[in-house]
């Protein structure tokens, strides 16, 4: 938590130069979206780079959404759902896990750094974890630089 806060604060726009990644997050309604809400309620800061799309379940996230996000200017994509065993729909996150495991392999094989697709489990109680995830993903994508493929 402390880490996330410092990251957010030390990386204020005024202090930064250069590349700011665009990151799109597909957040499941029941766990991660609520976890992100909790981060807000608890005022735990994180970088502004991520913008969330609310979906019912990480299992809802079509692989094509990720591909299209990259095609439409995202530098990185985060899919986040409930922890294994906690899925509101029992098993959606397990399907998502397999789907994105494969998509990352397809990315690797076709020359897109798979790190541009990140996945996390974050529960409705993990506001601090959410902030940390965002900070971590933002940093990762920042290191990778702008996505210039497709």
């Amino acid at each position, binding site marked *: 938590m402390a880490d996330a806060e410092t990251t*957010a*604060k030390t990386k*204020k*726009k*005024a202090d930064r130069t250069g590349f700011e990644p*665009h990151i*799109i997050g597909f957040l499941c*309604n029941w766990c991660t*979206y*609520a976890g*992100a*809400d909790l*981060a*807000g*309620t608890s*005022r*735990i*800061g*994180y970088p*502004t780079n991520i*913008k*969330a*799309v*609310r*979906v*019912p*379940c990480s*299992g*809802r*996230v*079509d*692989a094509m*959404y990720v591909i*299209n*996000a990259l*095609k*439409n*200017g*995202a530098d990185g994509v985060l899919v986040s759902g409930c922890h294994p065993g906690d899925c*509101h*729909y*029992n*098993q*959606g996150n397990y*399907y*998502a896990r397999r*789907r994105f495991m494969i998509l990352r392999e397809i990315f690797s094989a076709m020359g897109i750094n798979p790190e541009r697709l990140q996945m996390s489990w974050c529960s409705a109680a993990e506001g601090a974890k959410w*902030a940390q995830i965002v900070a971590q993903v933002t940093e990762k994508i920042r290191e990778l630089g702008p996505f210039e493929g497709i």
Partner: protein
Amino acid sequence: MARIGVFVCWCGSNIAGTVDVKKVAEEVSKLPYVVYSTDYKYMCSDPGQNMIKEAIKEHRLTGVVVSACSPRMHEVTFRRTVQEEGVNPYMMEMANIREHCSWVHDDMEEATEKAIELVRMAVAKAVELEPMEKIEVPVTKRALVIGGGIAGIQAALDIADGGVEVILVEKSPSIGGKMSQLDETFPTLDCSQCILTPKMVDAAQHPNIKIYSYAELEELDGFIGNFQARIRQKARSVDMELCNGCGDCWNKCPQKKIPSEFEAGMSDRAAIYVPFPQAIPNTPVIDRENCIYFQSGKCGVCAKICPTGAISYDQSDEFITEEVGAVVVATGYDLFNTDVIGEYGYGEIPDVISGLQFERLSSASGPTEGKIVRPSDGKKPEEVAFICCVGSRDDKYGRPYCSRICCMYTAKHAILLHHKSHGSQAYVFYIDVRAGGKGYEEFLRRATEEEGAIYMRGRVSRLYRDNGKVVVKGADTLSGAQIELHCDMVVLANGITASPGAEELARKLSISYDEYGFYSEAHPKLRPVETNTAGIYLAGCCQAPKDIPDSVSQASAAASKVLALFSGDFLTREPNIAEVNPFTCTGCFTCREVCPYDAIDEEEVTVHIDGKKVTRTIARVNLGKCQGCGICCAVCRSNAINLKGTKDLQIFRQIKAFTGSEKEKSDEPVGSKK
């Protein structure tokens, strides 16, 4: 053409302190389809909501974007607001610029920029929103309760008292369950039979309850409000109408050497039997596997002796289909099988018995009429050891969980021993004593302080026979001393395991279960009686180990859920469910494989493709079962299935709006809403 109004909330200084709301409103007013945008201090207040209504009227808005707090907070509020002004409630979209923006960022410029992006995404989705109507499903106001133990009986009684018909299915010949085998109950020491039997009678005589005993659920079809339960009535071999329960048959039956299930094997029963004298129904069944007539064709004594001619050897299993609207699963538990613990010698050393066997020994209706004696020689046991956590909290046997009842029933056994077998000494080996219920700690202290039980903290490593005694070897971990006790009898506090066949039943019901076979509740805290399959509820130990008060509470809770479900003639459900495009569905049914709710049915359709009539079997979403997760949509290769409220097109629009036109490359036609 879509006409979108955007309403940017300040939330006092909660948003406006970090986000330049004026700028957001101004910037988004330039977006396509946005015909009106404004900002206000508190959008959720009455004046705020009125602003929205006024704007809908004045600007003929077809869709509304409220840029404020989390939709998890106020989506319902603003949906109602637009509905009151005649706009379909699902034409309202929220942009979360508080929890996801102003509260987590502190640089005004950056937060404002992000807020604009979030609103832009919400507007893009709002343009593609479609009006939806809530789904109404008719309800069959009858309930099925599976399992006739105390939880099932309580649920059935509560539902029936609410004026709803109940079908109660019990797999053994009598209702009553495990509670009927118990002697006295903790922490009050009231007699189990005395409090249970009246409830059994109530259930049997209740005009709204129909009991199928010696019956099992074969198949469950349908969905919430509209289930079809196929019940297998196993062949009793006795006509329930004719039998008057006189008991001549079981008294005269020549095959009497079958260990009685009810007496936990402490005495025998006949091949034709009622499990216990107060059984309901009081009609015997023939245990065909042990009946001489069924095994060799010779005998037939019961048929000859029966004064009413009720014996019917050629009865066969029958199947009955009952229409119900809800199901309560109350299938209970089984006791951990202590045979697998070799070092305790259960089954080999006659004076090592299970907790349930001790209940029968202690019960006035049991094989010894309540006299506590050693099974080996019928003598009074002077020193009795009780071992806790047998098959509980033990990774070695795959059961790391606490069974929750054994600490308390062991304390009860120690007290009962003290009461019924004067001068006998109880030694209790425990790991931790868990006495978390109302009056439980006091009861435990009574056992140790008033009733003389000696508690020792430690696991017993081995039991063996020596000179007519059972030697208990273990350690007292508090004093660090090795202990070797020569006892007359040892009672194992077996833990609770899922009942046999729990997984199979779960599959029939399409409900989920954990790695131990206990059924999973929909939410561990907030929805403890529902399952993830709508219309199916849980009561008692089938969900997790519980004592009687907890089982009864959960049963009443499940009953109240059922009654609430039946309070209207229709079920109203949110309309965000999947729908199939009949023109592009190939009928591969990949969707069905991944659906957690079994909500994909088959449908024959005739469609015109390229001027030709084609009949195909395609997928159809069951309105009653679909819960709107959208897993099906993501696995469909032809994207022929879509989730209302989170359609592919709506998400694509959000993705595109996310970076605006900065890096636009798509050759997609611009603007779908002409």
